């Protein structure tokens, strides 16, 4: 069990570290476009659109990393009054809602992504008209990663709630 949990943790960790590099590509493409536009008066048709795709993937896939590090903003005024075990008991009641949301996101995201692929949807209006399915399929991918990490988190939470001990 611990081995599985730590594998899930490292998947989330590395998915985050991997996509974190995209921010340099974002900066580079946008800068490239500015330079082309002002120095050479030759704006690109693809830089902004590509940046948009990259940003979409970046934003949504970061979710699992944020979940792993427990950095999703929560209002903890009341929550922090409880002991770690008390918090785990609260979480074991609230987190099923998380699975409902991410599960729906996975299902409908997959649906929308597959339809974008089948219908060959493109960005419009746009001169480059790049395909939309890669970024749309990032939604179910991110949801899948979140489900994995959420499951690992939930197993730890339940363990804490029942035994009062950490499961590392």
């Amino acid at each position, binding site marked *: 069990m611990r081995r599985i949990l730590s594998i899930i943790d490292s998947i989330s960790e590395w998915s*985050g570290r991997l996509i*974190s590099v995209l*921010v340099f590509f974002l*900066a580079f493409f946008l800068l490239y476009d*500015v330079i082309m536009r002002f120095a050479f008066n030759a704006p690109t048709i693809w830089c902004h659109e590509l940046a948009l795709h990259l*940003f979409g993937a*970046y934003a949504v896939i970061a979710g699992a990393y*944020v979940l792993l590090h427990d950095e999703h903003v929560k209002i903890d005024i009341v929550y922090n009054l409880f002991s770690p075990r008390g918090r785990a008991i609260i979480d074991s009641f609230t987190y099923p809602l998380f699975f409902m949301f991410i599960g729906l996101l996975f299902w*409908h995201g997959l649906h929308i992504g597959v339809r974008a692929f089948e219908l060959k949807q493109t960005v419009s209006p746009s001169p480059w008209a790049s395909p939309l399915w890669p970024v749309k399929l*990032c939604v179910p991918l991110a949801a899948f990663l979140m489900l994995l990490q959420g499951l690992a988190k939930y197993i730890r939470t339940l363990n804490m709630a029942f035994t009062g001990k950490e499961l590392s």
Partner: protein
Amino acid sequence: MTELLPVLTLVGGLLFGLITGFPMAFTLSSSAIITAFFFFGAQTLPFVATNVFGMMSSMVLIAMPLFILMACLLEKSGVAEDLYAFMYQALGPVRGGLSMGTVLICAIIAAMSGVSTTAVVTMGIIALPIMLKQGYHKSIAIGPILAGGALGLLIPPSISLIVYGMVARVSIGKLFAGGVVPGLILVGAFLAYIAIRSYLQPDYAPALPKEERVSFKELIILAKGLILPIGVVAAVLGTIFAGVASPTEAAAVGVAGAIISALINRRLNWEMLSDAAVRSMGITGMVMWILFGAACFTSIFFRTGGQDLISDLLLGFENPALIFGFILVVLIVLGFFLDEITQVMITVPVFLPIIVELGYDPVWFGVLFMTQVQMDYLTPPFGFTLFYMKGVAPPEVSMADIYRSILPFVLIQLAVVVFILLYPGVVMWLPNLLF
């Protein structure tokens, strides 16, 4: 006729999240899902994916990770230390000078960074121990760091203003320009308070002893530390205000500027770059997931007709002063509990149409909003920065010291909020001049 039950379900879900400490992103989305399922039927549920995807395809939001990356890089590039070394000698000989210098440095950091915690953490580490060693009273040492840090919300570039601009569909450039004058007024007011207070109470913030001061020539050498940060700020804000580049592109310029600064200070290496990239990804992910949840929440809120309910109620007051009073009270009360991104996402779509109907500019309201949100950062229980401060402060600083130190600064902020409310021209002058 609006049905009340769906609205109550939504609001109840929000309250549930506040009490149970369930992350905001999931609280907002799951209350929307439950409301949609019970009142509008299961066939509406794909809205979850479409709203998330809609939020992912926002050109304006691309500026966010870039500005965060720029701040993370500058934080590690040593510019804050250089700034402080200069301010220490330039203002130290005056009573209260180190506090005033701290406010000024915070303002410069705010102009390089879109989040308020950057300044609090760096100044808490660099400036606070030195001020305490020089015999500054804890209040006049801590307060300026917190108040100065909160300026990051208002002084461009500001992540919160970017989110506001996206929700309210107004130009980010105008919003940034609108934040400048109120930001400077706040800086001026903080400086004036510190100067007067330390003039009247000489032992509150003593001047630097003569033997620690340096000659004028050495001061000029230290002034080199100003060149890089001011250069980066000028490049970023200059390109936006001159209309050369969009805020998103200017953010990319800022990233390049930050990398060059680090290179000049010989701090650039792979480890620093990858640390900064991972931190930017974490912060961006955190904000974006709130936006995903909030997008689901607001789309269902509109479907329930909750919007009409509130605007009927408010416009029913007929007296603009009363309406504004009500809105401000709601914002301040919500601010005690919610982080500012959630607050923008759920209150702006509701209040903005009312503000516009009354004939006010959305840009003005955005700036007013951020000026007001600064107070939330400094007031318990959700005062983010207070806890960051406790985290980096020397052990002799207690939470009570921190609470005591903020009071005069919060009062100044409140005064500026009222001032902006009464004289909208203060905010609108620069945007109207530039755009």
